[in-house]
């Protein structure tokens, strides 16, 4: 601290020996030292794109190095898919093979799990360890940190879809136009945004263990309820009543519309788009509120 005298509201008290000491100065600042404009940082190479990419690369690196995350987000959905595709993939359904339809439903299962669970658990763990705090006091805005967690799920999800496609072709004998596959992956990745927002909100509020339990419960219950793992026709009748109220159902309908458009009406597509857009808005607001709460 500079040595100029504090002259504004500084009081002085006499100690037992009579020595004076400045005390209790609520504005104990250095008089006459006005603030100047902020000097530029020593380094001026900061760029949002560079930071976002670096953050996303870090996230992806941590996912790849984490066996539990890889198991739940890659091995589990691909393993389920391989099992059921080998059993039923060759059957015909609505002018296409079951393996192709399963690519949309199990693809929804895989992509939504990646989008929801990976950033959610990553955020919860960062909070719990104190690493999020370190990031929050850094020069990276918190929204960029969180966005990077979501962006990092894109290559992860595409990888899951690629693995499922290899299985569908080799085990289930599926045949799919490359363009239809690209549309399917694009729709599932974009349509998984509300799930990512839900994961972020839970990760911002719950402990790592709590987030794990909650997100897994939501993941599996809504997946089964939406007919992603087993066709709704095979399940009790009330599943067909409940399914339209669940987000994964609508995402899978949009996925199916890309590879077997004859099985989904335009009205159904419109409804599913509206539901997912509305859910994105609501869950986005929830995520913003949760992050603000985590910050304070």
């Amino acid at each position, binding site marked *: *601290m*500079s040595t100029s005298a504090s002259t504004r509201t500084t009081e002085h008290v006499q*100690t*037992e*020996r009579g*020595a004076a*000491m*400045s*005390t*209790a*100065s*609520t*504005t*104990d*600042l*250095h008089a006459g*030292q006005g*603030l*100047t*404009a*902020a*000097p530029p*940082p*020593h*380094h*001026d*190479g*900061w*760029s949002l794109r*560079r*930071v976002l990419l*670096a*953050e996303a690369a*870090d996230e992806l*690196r*941590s996912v790849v*190095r*984490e066996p539990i995350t890889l198991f739940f987000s890659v091995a589990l959905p691909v393993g389920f898919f391989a099992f059921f595709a080998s059993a039923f993939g060759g059957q015909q359904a609505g002018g296409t093979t079951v393996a192709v339809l399963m690519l949309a439903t199990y693809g929804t299962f895989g992509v939504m799990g990646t989008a929801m669970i990976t950033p959610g658990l990553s955020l919860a763990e*960062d909070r719990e*360890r*104190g*690493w*999020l*705090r*370190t990031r*929050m*006091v*850094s*020069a*990276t*805005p918190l929204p960029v940190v969180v966005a990077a967690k979501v962006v990092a799920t894109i290559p992860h999800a595409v990888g899951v879809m690629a693995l499922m496609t290899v299985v569908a072709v080799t085990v289930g004998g599926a045949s799919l136009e490359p363009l239809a596959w690209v549309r399917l992956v694009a729709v599932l990745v974009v349509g998984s945004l509300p799930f990512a927002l839900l994961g972020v909100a839970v990760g911002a509020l719950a402990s790592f263990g709590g987030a794990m339990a909650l997100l897994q419960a939501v993941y599996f219950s809504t997946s089964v309820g939406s007919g992603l793992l087993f066709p709704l026709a095979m399940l009790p009748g009330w599943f067909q009543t409940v399914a339209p109220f669940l987000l994964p159902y609508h995402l899978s309908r949009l996925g199916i519309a890309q590879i077997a458009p004859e099985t989904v009406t335009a009205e159904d597509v419109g409804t599913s788009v509206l539901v997912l857009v509305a859910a994105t808005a609501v869950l986005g607001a929830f995520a913003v509120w949760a992050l603000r709460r985590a*910050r*304070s």
Partner: protein
Amino acid sequence: MDVLRVEGASYRYGAVDALTEVGLAVGAGDCVALLGPNGAGKTTLVNLVTGLLAPATGTVEVCGGDPRRAATRRALGVVAQSAGFPRTFRVGELLRSAATRAGAPRGAGEQALASVGAADLAPRRAKDLSGGQQRRVQLAMALVGAPRVLVLDEPTNGLDVGSRHDFWALVAARRDEGVGVLVTTHLMEEAAAVAGHVVVLDRARVVVSGTPGELTAAMPHRTVSAVSSLAPADVAALVGAEAVTLEGGRVFVRTAEAERVVRRWLQGDATLTGLAVASATLEQAVAALTGDGSPASAHPTTPADAPLAGARS
């Protein structure tokens, strides 16, 4: 020029006042120690300064900017109480990412690591490092963006004496290069060694501020100690002092009249050896100012309390 300025800052957690109209300033090349008992408001003030919280009233400015803005925080380097490093990352990777986040050029991470004497830690997993090594890595991450202000929150908690010594020497070097430093610590003699100014918080308010010398000089009592053949009660009767204790074979007399006590003690005990007179420590001064009567605060000066070398007093 002040690189950090807090003026009239208040903050409440519900009905509890965490800070009440607190003010302080840190100039370039200065080190200010924030002291006070647990719950005094130190962590809340650090949270205001690092942009985690916004003051309910008053202002907090880092290099003239609001630390709630990410761009302002580019001038800030922070060492938190806990590192919380991700489990799977190596030190070199953390430093490279920190350099990118700070907008520093390629290679700045390695340079920062080398500047704190930790270049050899680059290939190690951060979570596997010792406490002292983690603090070095934290400091390197804080320095990688060439900050104007360093905020250190209890940075030497849990470190051994050697690691603490090394850490403060690194901080003192940055301070001498012109970086403003705000540090909170419970190890007050270390604070006295590295900080040119001390701000004492108690019950959400600044109760005193000044140089460490001003604070200790204001304390009327000194401690006279020696190895004596007399029992503490006999020493008390002989020298006319009330606060006499026996610790580690030495008799300690706390008094406002050290010279008179020394004369009487020498006259009354011909076998007296190892006579020493110590002024009040910063810890004793702060304890007196904040009413913290913990036993640790009341202990007289011992060699272990001596200021660390390599840091400015």
